[in-house]
């Protein structure tokens, strides 16, 4: 495929708060999706106030980035009071799209906020081109496909319907068909389709067969679980671009800024590298490593090639330490003294090995030397959260570069 036919996909990142949003954009996201105080699916996340959304939009505009707001609950009647007013306020704030699942919200958005695009959420589990055609005729410009769609499914939809396609390329996945799980409702009286998901799919279960009344496992076997590995498509960027996916979506509004920045930056580099030279493109090991340094679960390729089997799930312990902690954020750098001013994000001390990285793939590793506090007093460790410290760095760094340490 010649480069003339290649369309640049959007890289769409999650942000649970304003700081994460700024880092997502600074590290290369073309668009960021956030939740407001209502109607989204992460009632546990920080979520944005209207004022914060205004700041988000102002910040995004400086970078030419867009802000989308999740409004993808399946609404009950009690949720509908104030919906139109809410959507209309978001239009005034200047967001670019609503991510919606329930037709009641789609209809309200069209009435109350006609200037804002309405995207169909993955919660609607669209998996075939006729369903896509239906939504196109309803005036929907973009569909976030079901997580169950494969490369072939996406190609079929793109070939048959002229509509923007957004797919998840990275992050945690519902192992159920999205929206088709009410485990939380049954176990904890929390409505999963209105943001109350208790992640019961990641709990541990015993499997029995009734007729024979015997367990399907031995006492020392791993327990049954529905918990899925996280998705990572960093190794398959060329194919995703070639089949015409319009937006590459990263999951994780609850994730840390270190996670968001690392993942966004890796995909940003891979996408840009492919677009600038499709023929000569090669996957770089450092992008994969960058992602692994942030990953909180083992990774897989979801349904893109085939439905996940035993190796696509997490049996035994869910714990999967990425091995790295976000240790500090660069606030300033003095080129004459080579001293960086760093805001502490995790305990570190002289003698420790740390890695600096920035948005464009710059990174280097060094040992922390003499450490000073903000007033220039030598200290034996950076032990206070958000404390400002200084030390000499081996290479130039920039404001908003990150520093991580091996655990």
């Amino acid at each position, binding site marked *: 495929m010649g480069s003339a036919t290649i369309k640049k996909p959007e890289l769409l990142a999650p942000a649970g708060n304003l700081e994460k949003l700024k880092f997502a954009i600074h590290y290369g996201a073309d668009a960021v999706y956030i939740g407001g105080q209502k109607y989204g699916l992460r009632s546990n996340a920080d979520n944005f106030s209207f004022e914060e959304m205004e700041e988000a939009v102002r910040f995004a505009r400086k970078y030419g980035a867009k802000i989308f707001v999740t409004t993808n609950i399946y609404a*009950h009647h009690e949720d509908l009071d104030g919906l139109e007013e809410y959507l209309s306020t978001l239009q005034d704030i200047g967001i670019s799209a609503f991510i919606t*699942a329930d037709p009641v919200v789609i209809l309200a958005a069209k009435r109350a906020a006609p200037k804002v695009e309405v995207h169909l959420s993955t919660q609607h589990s669209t998996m075939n081109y006729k369903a896509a055609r239906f939504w196109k005729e309803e005036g929907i410009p973009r569909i976030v496909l079901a997580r169950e769609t494969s490369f072939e499914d996406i190609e*079929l939809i793109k070939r048959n319907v002229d509509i923007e396609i957004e797919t998840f390329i990275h992050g945690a996945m519902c192992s159920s068909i999205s929206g*088709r799980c009410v485990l939380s409702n049954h176990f904890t009286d*929390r409505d999963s389709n209105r943001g109350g998901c208790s992640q019961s799919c990641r709990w541990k279960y015993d499997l029995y067969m009734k007729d024979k009344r015997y367990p399907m496992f031995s006492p020392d076997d791993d327990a049954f679980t529905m918990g899925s590995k996280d998705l990572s498509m960093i190794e398959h960027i060329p194919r995703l671009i070639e089949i015409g996916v319009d937006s590459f979506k990263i999951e994780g509004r609850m994730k840390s800024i270190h996670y968001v920045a690392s993942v966004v930056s890796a995909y940003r580099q891979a996408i840009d590298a492919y677009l600038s030279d499709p023929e000569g493109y090669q996957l770089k090991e450092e992008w994969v490593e960058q992602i692994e340094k942030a990953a909180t679960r083992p990774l897989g390729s979801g349904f893109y090639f085939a439905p996940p089997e*035993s190796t696509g*799930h997490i049996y035994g312990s869910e714990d999967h330490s990425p091995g790295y902690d976000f240790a500090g954020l660069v606030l300033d750098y003095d080129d004459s003294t080579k001293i960086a001013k760093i805001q502490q994000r995790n305990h570190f001390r002289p003698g420790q090995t740390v890695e600096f990285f920035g948005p464009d793939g710059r990174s280097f590793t060094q040992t922390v030397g003499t450490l000073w506090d903000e007033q220039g007093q030598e200290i034996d460790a950076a032990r206070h959260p958000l404390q400002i410290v200084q030390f000499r760095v081996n290479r130039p760094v920039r404001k908003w570069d990150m520093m991580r340490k091996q655990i």
Partner: protein
Amino acid sequence: MKKPELLITAGSCREIETYAASGADAVQIGENRYGVRMPGNFDIAGIKEAIQTAKQCGVRVYVSVHNLIPHERLDGLGDYLEKLAEWEADAIIFGDPAVLVTLKERGLQMRLHWDGEMTATNAETANFWKKHGAVRAVLARELNLEEIKMFRKQTDMEIQVQVHGITNIYHSMRRLVTSYMDHLGRHTPDMKYGAEQGLYLVEHERRGLKLPIFEDDAGTHIMSPDDICMIENLDELAEAEPDSLKIEGLLKTEQYNETVVRCYREAIDALYSDPEHYEFDEQWLEKIEELQPPGRELSYGFYYKEQVY
């Protein structure tokens, strides 16, 4: 008060005859490529025979086409819908809008019941599907009675609620039992994990609850640990003016379902013939309790629950 229809799922022609004789007004059938979680093993020829059987028994017959439809089944959908129209199914039940698009392409007019499973939660959304041809909304089992009443007020569509039986609480397109058994190194190709195997899960912190689990062509289904039973409260439910009361017969014996249909039939007839003097007859519940599978409680589902989020 308009008397609601009594509807039950059926997995064979014999079951259709039994339930019709016991007092069902309508049966829901389906085969498992386009239908989802339907009892029995109807193939397409079997569906034809079942429709005929229902008609001979004088009950309406609705065919489930409400699975989400992957591409590999999309091509066969049009022909299947044409057959269902030709055989004069009284309605088809849909969830995936691909069904609507396909009907339009083929120029088929059929009565349509919209069943979004757990996503059918408000009347305005039901009215959206009405605009696209649906005449009935099948309400999410996670709605409570007050919400159902509100739903009723805000639509003139028929509304169907489940009054008895098991509900699906999780549907994945992954083969989760196969994957797990494979992980343990215990899976062999001859092992089956279908509905008839009686597999169930027990969550480690909730040892008292058994959640049936099975695999089929549509993936893995996890089912509620209890059975809805609203027979004691049909008078309260009547205030919501439902048009159809559904009994889910999945994972139950024909004998159990027959008894359930009989008891609801008697209760509905008594209630709607003379609502003023209606009195609940304890025997109806006792007969069901006698046959209730051990370890599965009867519950009111979400009818009287508040959920948080």
